[in-house]
């Protein structure tokens, strides 16, 4: 680890200034991802600004929204009654993440900005376009079981690891920020970036811009939602593939539906194409299968991850059958 300076922010403006001032500075919340990256040398900073003292931990609801502070802990949000009742998909995504110890430390804001588990990205001995732009992507022809099949580019196929983010994109959350240029409201779908030619850029935040919270619109679909996560062991592991689904049925007909996927894409992946297949139709096995096919349209398989294309459709089918009570 390189030497770095530590500063504690007393209010959001302070935090924004302390990071904004210095190109090598960054925020630290729970530190559960940042510290590992710094120890492994995958990320270096000359100043870390501790934001844990900021009063951004509230969880509240009213006026058609649920609001969650950026520093609320994963454990607290996942267990919160309003979250469980109004956004089961979010609660389930959180409680299926990491371990109780990690969830007690890790914050909501930090979760959205955690970096990929790609082994090449985390190994400083390897080339990686995300870590060193232009150095190459060994994953494309290397070990890529954990990698993405959607949203990929010739420069990067690293999967986005966050479960929470997949659930949030499915419920149309808005990210609230406070930065050097003032406050912003960023619709979740616009927040993360696919790698394209600049895999080092993973979101639209500007340097020094602080996530202060999330706003989640209360909808009938969100209240009837589910997160399904497939992983290589029973607990304490990232997703091989995951599905976040929110469904509002009128009789057997799909009035509203939101579908998002994890483990298969370079960013939290919402499939409006798959949603369009279902919307206005009677929910049955045939339409569910058609939605599955739409969801993976354009997927690019690699040597070790082709299985995900089929597996994610099976997972979607499982969720929709269960959520829609389809036999």
């Amino acid at each position, binding site marked *: 680890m390189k030497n770095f300076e530590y500063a504690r922010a007393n209010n959001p403006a302070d935090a924004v200034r302390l990071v904004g001032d210095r190109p090598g500075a960054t925020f630290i919340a729970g530190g559960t991802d940042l510290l590992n990256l710094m120890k492994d040398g995958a990320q270096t900073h000359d100043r870390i600004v501790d934001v844990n003292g900021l009063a951004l931990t509230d969880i509240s609801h009213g006026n058609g929204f649920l609001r969650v502070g950026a520093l609320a802990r994963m454990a607290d949000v996942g267990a919160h009654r309003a979250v469980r009742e109004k956004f089961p998909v979010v609660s389930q995504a959180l409680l299926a993440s990491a371990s109780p110890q990690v969830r007690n430390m890790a914050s909501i804001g930090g979760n959205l900005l955690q970096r990929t588990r790609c082994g090449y990205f985390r190994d400083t001995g390897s080339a990686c376009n995300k870590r060193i732009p232009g150095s190459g992507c060994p994953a494309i022809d290397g*070990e890529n*079981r954990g990698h993405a099949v959607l949203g990929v580019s010739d420069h990067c196929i690293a999967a986005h690891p966050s479960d929470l983010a997949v659930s949030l994109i499915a419920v149309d959350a808005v990210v609230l920020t406070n930065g050097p240029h003032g406050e912003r409201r960023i619709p979740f779908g616009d927040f993360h970036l696919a790698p394209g030619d600049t895999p080092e850029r993973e979101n639209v935040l500007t340097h020094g811009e602080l996530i202060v919270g999330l706003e989640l619109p209360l909808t009938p679909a969100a209240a009837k939602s589910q997160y399904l*996560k497939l*992983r290589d*062991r029973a607990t304490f592991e990232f997703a091989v593939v995951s599905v976040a689904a929110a469904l509002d049925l009128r009789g057997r007909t799909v009035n509203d539906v939101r579908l998002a996927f994890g483990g298969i894409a370079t960013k939290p992946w919402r499939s409006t194409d798959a949603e369009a297949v279902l919307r206005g139709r009677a929910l049955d096995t045939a339409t569910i299968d058609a939605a599955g096919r739409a969801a993976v349209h354009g997927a690019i398989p690699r040597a070790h991850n082709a299985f995900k*294309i089929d597996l994610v459709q099976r997972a979607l089918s*499982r969720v929709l059958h*269960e959520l829609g009570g389809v036999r």
Partner: protein
Amino acid sequence: MSKSAPVRTPTDLTSSVAGGIGASPQRPDGNLKVRGEFAYASDLWHEDMIWGATLRSPHPYARIRSIDITEALKVPGVYAVLTHSDVPGKNLYGLEHPDQPVLAVDVVRYQGEPVALVGADHPETARRAMERIAVDYEVLEPVVDMEDAAHGRGTPLHPGGNLVRHVPIRHGDQQVTAEVVVTGEYEVGMQDQAFLGPESGLAVPGEDGGIDLYVATQWLHVDQKQVAQALGLPLDKVRLTLSGVGGAFGGREDLSMQVHASLLALHTGKPVKMVYNRLESFYGHVHRHPAKLYYEHGADRDGRLVYVKCRIYLDGGAYASSTPAVVANAATLGVGPYDVPNATVDCWGVYTNNPPCGAMRGFGAVQAGFAYESQMDKLAAAVGLDPVEVRIRNAMHEGSLMPTGQVVDSAAPVAELLRRVKDKPLPPVNRTEPVDIREMPGGASNTTHGEGVVRGIGYAVGIKNVCFSEGYDDFSTARVRVQVIGGELSALAHTAACEVGQGLVTIMQQIVRTELGVERVTIAPMDTTIGNGGSTSASRQTYVTGGAVRSACQTVRGRLFELAARKLGVDAVGLSLHGGKLVSDLHGVLADLVDVLGDDVVDETVEWRHRATESLDPVTGQGNAHVQYGFAAHRAVVDVDVELGLVKVVELDCAQDVGKALNPEAVLGQIQGGSAQGLGLAVMEEIQTSGGKIRNPSFTDYLIPTVLDMPPMSIDVLELADPHAPYGIRGVGEPPTISSTPAIVAAIRAATGLALTRAPVRPEHITGT
């Protein structure tokens, strides 16, 4: 309240001393470990110590054009920067073949190979200095295919080529044919020992120019020999003491930081501490050999084996480590615990640029076990028999002949073990509503409430050799001392055999209590001031060091009787020891041992060997190569979500013959732990490599089973004494690791109908996509 001592011994003579063999007294280190107060090697500390760090190769294969340490030496706080030219002795070491440089000279053969060392006032200073060491590498194309390496294709990585060892076994008729033939190709992934305590130790320079090394290891004397050779010092100037070991499982049999810390200490004149972090630990120890196995079983229509032919490839990675022994195990145990009249076995262990592999619990037997047990299931299906029935029809028994021609000359209750696991009641299929999702495939991930779930049951049985084989002079040294301390009778047992968590310290206490009737037994620190204790591997310490301690006790007892005869004027014949009293067959209690001893001290050191073994004939593989065989059988019950490819092992039951359970609770612990490690290999554990590089060197990405993955176990322990072994014991640690993996995979096959030829099984193997 401390419970580390057994309850007090009753005073009547009919009952023996408490906490002896057959009881399960608490471990002397148990409370400290549970409370987090036990000092592991990473907790070692010394005034004025400095920190050592290792610069490692980022490339699996590269030529080193130059190493420039100039800038690193300029970093304030740096005491030394060392390269291969600073190795005063032989810059090659190795468990069986010295082929591994202490520090790389002009070539690196695996990612993580040590290239230079830094000694500095702080680990961070050392790290910064390492960044300033300029190594100019010419990166080369790595050799990664084990079959190519076995057959002379590809770049030779060592002077003698890439074949480390080939063991052929030719048993019976080599031309025989059979009515029913089943074939299969199998693969076993690279498993890691995943011990929790990273490699660590402290090297203290001695005033005599020697070194005192405190280290977590599995074999003090083999370390001592290699360190002395590398340092160019005589053995008596390299003194090792075992420090707290946080798990081993084979991964500490090879050197890690031992020579490095000692070099730095001698160079700087300061005590040097080295502790690997988790990432470095993954590079810093050997793993389980990944394997590729080709099998053909021939049988008659009743499922009786006519022949087995197999070819087994084991990837040893960059250096030999214990590859030769792993190859011999896989070959000699390659057909499993069955009566096989004709066998053709070939096993190759090779060099590649993959991470070095060596000993890991069940070494060689685990890889072969996965293949031959998969074959037995195939055979059962081909002849229309139940998988247990086909195994019982072919089960080896006492008196059976191994493919090496060796007669199995003690209990081999293979059929009995299988019957026992088969006869256990099965867990209910229909769960109560609402289902507890933690008991479902997918676990806490909420993937199913029963949809898509199919149950499967699988069986396996395995065989493992216990102790060191092939003519190796395998022995242990024990010293036992009896004296009166503070008016109380007290014994001390001293060996160089390493306690790595398995409970040898408890076993030694138990043996002394039983043999000498002395309740208070202290275990001296394990070090090289006493003779070789041999390796804590091959399930051998209870057998060999246990045997040595018992033998030392017997010598001590003889001396005590002589003393008593002299002091009390009685005949030394017909005396015995009970609960601290000297008893005569004829006259009952003669005296308290405390009074007999007085100020005298009885102190005896004994070297003890198990019966000799022979080497294998290099052409036919014939020979009495092994000391003893151990057997275990498993039944696995799994629920598989066949749509999503997820597995829940619902129950994992085991029956094992241990000869004699010296400590029944420790036996259960070994069986549970070994079975869990086998479960890991069955469904999740694998070091993923590509192009020779490890892709998942962390416990976030290398998965080991959690409490939600490991099911309850029902365990039967058989005690069929081996007349050749001390107390009749049979090594316990490894057998349960062997049959656990194939039983689980067989159960997944039963649920899915899939062939599943690779361990670990992953979701994509089940969904077939």
